[in-house]
């Protein structure tokens, strides 16, 4: 094992996959420099034809990735901020998502759309969204949201090799998070949740940055309640079985995610638990999510985004 950080793990995945398969290329705004460092330095190794800087044109970036993918390449389109993916809604949610299905399976769209999501930087409503639910909602898109360097590298490599469109959301607030990864090559399969902490009283299903907040809360509460923290790692496919197995053990569950509450990821996971695990529940499912408001900036941000105290409150509500 070696020590690394989240953003370096992402860069390593790109590096290894570009090395392995010459059909892989990166396309996006300022990717040669890399806005978040995830694509930095790759141009020195692979050249500007494979690390393609584009003008400010999200529709063209996503559209070009879709077209090139259909024609046999494996583009990784960096959309920079996840918020900007709305600009290319047709290309992402209609073309990438539906064209394999729509055309009777005759064409496929093997691409990765990666983008930085999430709040914590106080940069407001158009730079802090977690548009997970809209992607999860769209049939035909897979969705990976890693919380650790290990998961980030392994999931991104899997995403690049997948023959379908995969959205890979990395969290801005996790870029510097340290962690260990193997020296040798590895992949993290889609649809396999990871039990980040074992516990017996309450299950917390947490995604992305919420995993870290939940782990901290679990540690803080350890003398009072034993909290199990499960990270689904991919939301489509979603490993509901691992979640239900944990609920069977604890009987109590909190779902924590940073997308808005209404029709968000927490609603979907909570409802699936109702459908498949109702008999195991000893208390109503609690959810922790962003308020149903745009993400405010500055001092107001913390009143919108889910906070550790909200996770504590939810755990206490189900545990008693």
């Amino acid at each position, binding site marked *: 094992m070696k020590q690394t950080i989240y953003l370096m793990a992402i860069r390593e995945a790109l590096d290894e996959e570009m090395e392995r398969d010459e059909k892989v290329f990166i396309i996006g705004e300022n990717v040669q420099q890399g806005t978040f460092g995830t694509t930095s330095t790759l141009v020195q190794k692979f050249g500007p034809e494979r690390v393609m800087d584009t003008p400010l044109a999200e529709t063209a970036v996503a559209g070009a990735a879709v077209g090139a993918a*259909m024609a046999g390449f494996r583009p990784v389109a960096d959309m920079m901020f996840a918020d900007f993916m709305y600009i290319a809604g047709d290309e992402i949610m209609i073309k990438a998502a539906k064209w394999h299905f*729509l055309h009777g399976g*005759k064409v496929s769209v093997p691409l990765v759309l990666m983008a930085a999501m999430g709040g914590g930087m106080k940069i407001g409503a158009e730079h802090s969204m977690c548009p997970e639910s809209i992607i999860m909602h769209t049939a035909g898109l897979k969705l990976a949201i890693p919380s650790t360097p290990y998961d980030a590298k392994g999931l991104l490599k899997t995403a690049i090799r997948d023959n379908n469109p995969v959205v890979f959301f990395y969290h801005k607030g996790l870029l510097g998070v340290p962690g260990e990864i193997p020296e040798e090559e590895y992949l993290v399969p889609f649809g396999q949740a990871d039990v980040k902490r074992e516990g017996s009283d309450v299950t917390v299903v947490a995604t992305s940055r919420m995993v870290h907040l939940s782990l901290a809360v679990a540690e803080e509460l350890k003398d009072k309640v034993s909290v199990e923290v499960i990270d689904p790692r991919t939301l489509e496919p979603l490993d509901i079985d691992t979640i239900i197995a944990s609920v069977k053990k604890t009987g109590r569950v909190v779902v924590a995610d940073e997308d808005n509450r209404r029709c968000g990821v927490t609603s979907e996971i909570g409802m699936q638990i109702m459908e498949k695990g109702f008999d195991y529940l000893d208390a109503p499912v609690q959810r922790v999510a962003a308020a149903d408001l745009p993400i405010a900036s500055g001092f107001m941000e913390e009143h919108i985004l889910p906070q550790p105290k909200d996770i504590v409150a939810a755990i206490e509500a189900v545990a008693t």
Partner: protein
Amino acid sequence: MELKKEQLINLYTLMVRTRKLDELTIKGLQEGKVLAFYHSGQGSEALAVGAIAFLRPDDYAWGHHRGHGIGYLLAKGADGKEFLAEHYGKATGSCLGVSGFHYADPELGVLGAAGTIGSVFPISLGWGLAAKKNKRQQVMVSVFGDGGSNRGTLHEAFNLSSVWKLPIVWICDNNGMAQFMPIKDAYAREDIADLAAGYDMPGVVVDGMDVLAVQEAVQAAVARARAGDGPSLVEAKTIRYRSHSEGSPDVVHNQPRSEEKIEAWKKRDPIESFKAKLLEQGMLTEADVDKINQEADAEMAEIEKFCTDSPPPDVSVLEKLLYAE
């Protein structure tokens, strides 16, 4: 390019087949066999055929939504059976009966069709980018309507295609109408080809009723693209004979479209005028014309029977189609 006799006859034959398949699709709709809707392409056969007939098999083509791409598809070598069977919702359709009216045949370079107007631009950009990366001198021919030209997607894609010198031929089918909206109220200039200058690419206007004029302009643009000199824009002036879609009112805003204008254009019908020219030049005899018509009629009868006889898809295809293996 000086065309040989058989090439001229091929162009004529393709246009005849295009018109007849269009008529057959309308018939299917009227009989309730075509399940979705249909946007007839009558009046733009010369553009479809002239633009596509001389491409290489491995060139990419995006046909216009008008006529649901019939002329473009037939000219690229597609099978009319799969085209109509898809409209019939049958398992033998081009997209297994799940698309209703789209077509895909990767082996012919027809990678897909779209329902959102204007999405042609960014996706074609990607196909053009792939063509350039493949380094096999492939070209991408991408057709859009005057209505589509109003989308902002055009700017991003035109600009990048030119900056990256992609082998793309952008073709505008300017029939003057976008559903009920006349182009004169949607665009400030006369010619859409004028846009090309802003992207530093050649832009030409051709008579879209003249298959040879279309063919010549498109071939020049194709040659430029193959040589690595980048994209071009060819605007063809055409007309839409019928209403926007079968059964919808034929209006400009909310007033009936001028019958006289349509009749005047019909006097220059692309199929009839090309036939007259070929007869006059002795390239074609009345007997040849009869034979071409009869063969096309036989083909249509076969297509219709095939579609009627084909089974509907099994519902199990749905789950299987969501993701590629």
